[in-house]
């Protein structure tokens, strides 16, 4: 067993998000809404040497599985990420994230004058474009600042 696999297998049950672009680990936690207060066991590796990325971040969450909408948003800030589901110390499932065509209900529109920020009975909806996302309602383009507008 390689050192890498040892690293991701250390938790008993939960999720390991691997191959996160260096520097994005805390944003990954933000997407998952994890700040430590919920009592989950969380460990974060930052700037770990990686063949694929040069340096990568790594997030391990004990006792938590990801929803599809969380994975969708994750794919925007960590397009290379792999998601490992761990049970009884074994990686039982390993998935690459895929960029969806649209993300609904997870991001808030940064345009304060957007109709989705008024009190209307709609979810936000963003089209995933080459280097970011774009509001279906007001066309505002959101790029590197995606993590600041997560609203899960």
């Amino acid at each position: 067993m390689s050192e890498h696999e040892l690293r991701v297998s250390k938790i008993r049950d939960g999720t390991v998000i691997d191959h996160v672009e260096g520097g994005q680990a805390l944003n990954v936690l933000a997407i998952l809404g994890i700040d430590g207060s919920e009592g989950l066991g969380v460990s974060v590796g930052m700037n770990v040497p990686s063949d694929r990325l040069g340096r990568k971040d790594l997030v391990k969450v004990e006792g938590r599985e990801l929803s599809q909408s969380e994975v969708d948003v994750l794919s925007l800030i960590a397009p290379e990420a792999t998601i490992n589901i761990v049970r009884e110390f074994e990686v039982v499932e390993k998935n690459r994230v895929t960029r969806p065509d649209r993300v609904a209900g997870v991001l808030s529109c940064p345009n304060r004058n957007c109709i989705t920020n008024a009190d209307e009975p709609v979810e936000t909806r963003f089209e995933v474009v080459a280097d970011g996302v774009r509001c279906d309602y007001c066309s505002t383009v959101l790029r590197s600042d995606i993590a600041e507008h997560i609203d899960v």
Partner: protein
Amino acid sequence: MRQDHLITATQLSRDDIEAVLDRAREVAADPEAYAGRHGGTMLALCFFEPSTRTRMSFDAAAKRLGIDTIDMGDVDSSSVSKGESLADTVRVIEGYADSIVLRHPSEGAATLAAEFVDVPVINAGDGAGQHPSQTLLDLHTIRENHGLDDLTVGIMGDLKYGRTVHSLATALTNFDARQHFISPESLRLPRSVRFDLHETGAQIREHEDLEGVLPELDVLYVTRIQKERFPDENEYHRVAGQYRIDADTLEAAPDDLTVMHPLPRVDEIAADVDDTDHARYFEQAHNGIPVRMALLDTLLENAEAAEGMEVDR
């Protein structure tokens, strides 16, 4: 145009635009042929933001087609001020009318409205977003004066918040048009519009002053720079002054330059331009009637066709 609604200019293909403008030409040539064509139908005018010009233009266009109009009235006196959502408002109004014209201060309002109703929705301005019916009459004016190909257009003024600019710039990407954008640094095109222009590979150039590019232009589209866009009044006067034109400015322009403005203007086009052959902004405003008639006619025809299909099923 096979669409049910008119929400943004980005939804319009060259064919869509030409079909409406061809029809507008027919309407202008023989308005009698269109009189009463949609008798017995109702159009709701929902203006959540003050407007006299656009509202009257739609009202007049509708009535010439025999369409009756109902007007929501001023927002102050309507249930909107009681906190009703836009989604609720349009769902109620859908029961009163066969089509809805909507102006709203929030970007994306028309997109949202169209998701909640089955009748055609026409966006008559959503915040700093889009104003596509204005664009159709702008294009009609350009087409009648120059045609829509091999065209050099200068768009000047408030490009950041100007919804007529956003719609026009995106619609022009359907044609062989070079676009020059002339504005102060702080009022350049927003990222959302650049995105659409970039996607289409449109040829655009940006300038801080008109002088250098004026001799190349077929069309100069002027928009108002509003005082509210500047934190400081002196700064506003200094900047706005640089984007004003008068008859002297136009000495350097080609003889057949067409000067347009979505109106109302304040002082960005001096009154002495009105007497030159360049001035087309009143003609442009008048074009609102045949173009909006053609648009309403098209959308109602589409809606009727769609309804017919549902009945068949």
